[in-house]
Structure formats: C-alpha cells, structure tokens
C-alpha cells in the first residue's frame, strides 16, 4: 500500500471572521433582512462582508451592492447551479472559497453573512461553512409552516418570522404561530420581524453579537 493513501488526520481548524448563514424560502425576506442588518452591525462597530447565493446569476448581490449600505467590493456572489441546497450543505466549497477570499481581501472583517438562494423548508447549512445560522420564514407563507417540522425551521440557531405586519391581511394568528414555532423548536430562539420597518432587527444583531462574536 502506498503510505500516502493512509487515512487523513483531523480536518484543519480555521481562524478568521465568524460566518453566519441566512437561509429560508424564496421571498421570505432574506435580502431585506441583510439590508437592515448592515447598518445595525455598523452601529455596533462590526466589520462586515457578505456572500450571496443566487438562483439566477447575481441578482441579490447586485441589490446589496447598489444599496449604498456597504462597500460593493465586500459583497461576493456564488452561483448555485440550480442547486440551492447543495451549495450550502452537500458541497459548500464554492461558498467557503468565496468567504476565504473576502477574508483575505478584508482582513479586518469580523463577520461574514452568507445568504442562501431561496429554497424550501428542508434547507439547512453545513457547519463546514457557517458557525451559526438562521432561517427566515414569513407569515404570508402560511401559519402552518412551523407545524410542518421542516429541518430548516427545526435545526437553525435562530428562527426569524418576518413580515409580521401582514398577519391580519393573510388571516394569520401571530401569537399562535409564534407559540407553535416555539413548541416545534423546543424553546430555542425565535425573533419576529418586520424588515420594512426595521422591527426586530436590533434583537437579531444583539443575538449574533453575543452568540457568535462573544460580545
């Protein structure tokens, strides 16, 4: 046997910016959440970079670059090859490489947000890619989403229920939806947001600061 074929040792550890995933179905408000989080982190003195995974080319990345909220060079786009699950879970190498590149170009970066392409409730992040991740759903998607026990809802570190302002218009009992989500997640954290009015954003920024950046 060739000695070089011996099983490898442990995987190498990584030192660098913390990486936070933001997943969730199409239209739930992931990009809007990022647009609100950018100033929230700036106010907290956190140096930020962003990777987006777009289903089609670089639509979300361009939206964030043009927002005027962040240096466009700090935003990288990764195409998902029609596989939004794969690019954050089974094969996160393109995202890891993009985050590594941002880290090399901006050594001051403390936090890299990685937005998944719009996906469904089965979507989860590989811990090879991120240190911590949240999953964004919205009330207009239906109040039965937490009851469906999708891995995204159950396994994320933080569940974000967005577009709370729409609840009365789509027949959603928001307190019940929150209670059912809390029960489904065994009491793990949930934040209700209305990204349009920046409601709930400070709570998410504080949560990331304490859970990921240990501040």
């Amino acid at each position: 046997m060739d000695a070089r074929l011996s099983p490898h040792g442990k995987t190498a550890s990584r030192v660098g910016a913390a990486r936070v995933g933001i997943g969730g179905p199409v239209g739930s408000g992931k990009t809007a959440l990022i647009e609100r989080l950018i100033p929230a982190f700036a106010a907290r003195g956190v140096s930020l970079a962003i990777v987006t995974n777009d289903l089609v080319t670089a639509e979300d990345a361009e939206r964030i670059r043009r927002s005027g909220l962040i240096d466009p060079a700090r935003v990288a786009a990764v195409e998902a090859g029609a596989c939004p699950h794969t690019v954050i879970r089974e094969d996160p190498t393109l995202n890891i490489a993009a985050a590594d590149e941002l880290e090399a170009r901006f050594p001051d970066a403390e936090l890299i947000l990685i937005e998944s392409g719009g996906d469904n409730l089965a979507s989860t992040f590989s811990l090879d890619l991120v240190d911590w991740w949240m999953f964004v759903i919205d009330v207009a998607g239906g109040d039965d989403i937490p009851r469906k026990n999708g891995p995204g809802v159950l396994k994320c570190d933080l569940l974000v229920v967005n577009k709370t302002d729409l609840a009365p218009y789509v027949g959603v009992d928001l307190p019940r939806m929150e209670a059912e989500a809390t029960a489904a997640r065994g009491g793990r954290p949930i934040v209700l947001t209305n990204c349009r009015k920046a409601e709930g954003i400070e709570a998410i920024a504080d949560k990331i600061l304490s859970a990921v950046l240990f501040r």
Partner: protein
Amino acid sequence: MSAAGGLGLLVALQHGDSQFPSGGFAFSQGLEASSQLAERLGAFDFAGFMRAQIRHRWAEADRVALVRAHRLRGDLARLAALDREVEASTLVEGLRAGSRRNGAALLTTHARIGTPGAAAYRAMLRDGAAPGHLAVVQGLLWQALGLDEATAVAISGYQAAASLATAAVRLGLVGAIEAQAELARMLPLIETGSAAPVADDEPIRSFIPLAEIAVALHGAAGQRLFSN
C-alpha cells in the same frame, strides 16, 4: 492505481464520486448557454454536445493538463507554470474563470482534509502566484494521494462526462435515466481519448467554438443558473 489491493480502488471511488465536495455542480461548461442559444447558433442536441466536449476539450486539453500536472509530482513552481499555460490556452473568460473557481473549490476541501500539497498550492493561489485551474489541481492532488496516471485520467474523464449529464438533468434537457444511457455511450469515447499518448510538453488545445461563442454570449446576458 499504484496502490496494491482494494484500497487504491476505494480511494479512486472516493475522489471520483460526485459527492466529493469540489464545487463542480455549479458549472455546465457551456451546456446551459448552448441549449438556450440553439436558435441563434444552430441545432443543439445533448449527446452531440457531450461528444464534442469529451473529444475536443477534455481529451485534448483537460486530460493533457492533468497528465502533465500528475508527472510533476508535486513540484509547485512547475505546476504554477503549467497552470499559467492552461490560463493562456483557455480562450473564453467564462470557461477560464469557471475552471479557476472549480480548482480553488477542490483545493479548499483538500486543504481542510490535509492532502499533501493542497494548503501550499492554495496559498500560492491566494498570493496570485498560480491561477488554480481544475485539471492542474486535480493532477497535483490525485498524484499526492497515490493514484496513478491512468486512474487519474479515468476519474477526470468520467467526471467531465458525468457532470455534463447531471447539468443536463437539472436543465431539463434529458431525464435522469436517459442521462445514464447517454453517459454509458460516452464511456468508450473517454477510453479512446485516454489512450492517446501525452508528451511531457504536449500542447494544451481545445476546439469547441460553438460552445465558446455560446458562453461568451451568455456571460454578457447575465441571467443563468450555472456559473458557466
């Protein structure tokens, strides 16, 4: 395989498996563009596209770069020179950038799992000392893992065809079962292409003009599922 017994075969299976994280799923090598631009560029059929890719790109360019990289036995400076030759011989930006990104993604996995040479070559990429084209990176890594030249070529050829078949399924061009039939029909072509001798200074050349035009047009259009 240079390794005796079944371990070499198992290592080859591990590294030929599409589940091995390499970023390869995000690239269609012009298949998406060619299929969508068929009305402008002439008739398109998947089998013909795959044949052209294997015969006129993989066999004459990717395979040659892989074999030459494998023979350099981890000499990173000479690998970087070969890498630059691949860069110079790949005409279209979309295919050139895709090959670099795919190579960097494969290196990412190998650097994390500790394959010899991976971290050092990755550092050269980061410093701008090497572009990191996929075939060169594969030659470096698979040689370092003890896979012999013929096995490395077989994995490369199989992956080139299989990744096109997978992309075709995701693009809705063929069904998943028909894709396997197409892949099976491609295997003898890969075997034939593998048999051609490669000199140590063999030129890297490909001739896929329609696919290259399609990628160039598609890149400018901006709306696509795959990276190329």
